[in-house]
């Protein structure tokens, strides 16, 4: 899965040998710019960074702002 540009949209890519990849819409994270996403298998969530804040994405497209863990400066991830 990848998040495309602003507004970030999570897309699922399906691959099959001999066929072009298929991109399927998953959900839109409206109102956020999110980067550095990754899947955390320990709790089955996708997390990423929005500015200096950790954000958590759930399967329905909901976003929870976890907060800044202490990263200094402004907008580390833009």
């Amino acid at each position, binding site marked *: 899965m*990848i*998040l*495309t*540009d*602003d*507004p*970030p*949209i999570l*897309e699922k*890519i399906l*691959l099959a040998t001999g*066929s*072009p*990849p*298929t*991109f399927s*819409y998953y959900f*839109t994270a409206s109102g956020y*710019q*999110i*980067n*550095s*996403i*990754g*899947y*955390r*298998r*320990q*709790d089955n969530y996708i*997390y*990423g*960074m929005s500015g200096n804040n*950790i954000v*958590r994405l759930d399967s329905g497209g909901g976003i929870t702002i*976890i*907060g*800044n*863990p*202490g*990263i200094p400066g402004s907008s*580390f*991830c*833009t």
Partner: protein
Amino acid sequence: MRAVGNAGDFDSDGYLWTCATTAINPVTCYKLDVTNKTIVLTLNNVDFGGAANDFSFSPLDGKAYFVAQTSTFTVQSLDLQTCSSSCSPTPLYSFSASANFTTAPIGTFFDSLNNFYLVDNNGYVAVIFGLPSTSLTVQYFGNGTRKLGERERDMQEAN
């Protein structure tokens, strides 16, 4: 992963690593505990060897793999788990933009068999087999039935 700069992934222990991977190296990387909202480790001197838009941790050796863009695209690895005062990449394989892969990868992913998946900004997908060796093979899947960004444009036009 957006095309402008910042990369990240979870390691096998559930820590999120995030790095500001601009063309200007070295950069700062953070190892984050997302459940306790804390910085576990800060690496201030990480060299990606070029601009890299994403990295993924290999399930085989735990190193971060990415494609750095210079005059070509170079698959490289970084051992973020063990480097401290400075971190330098190990180049493994270079390729150029082609009809099969048009831009620097914006997203990367490892499957459980340690196959390394890349997707570029135009929806082209490639898979690299054989990491962490340098005896690699690449399979190109072409581009998607729908290029990245088209849906965003559709939504903006609808609004």
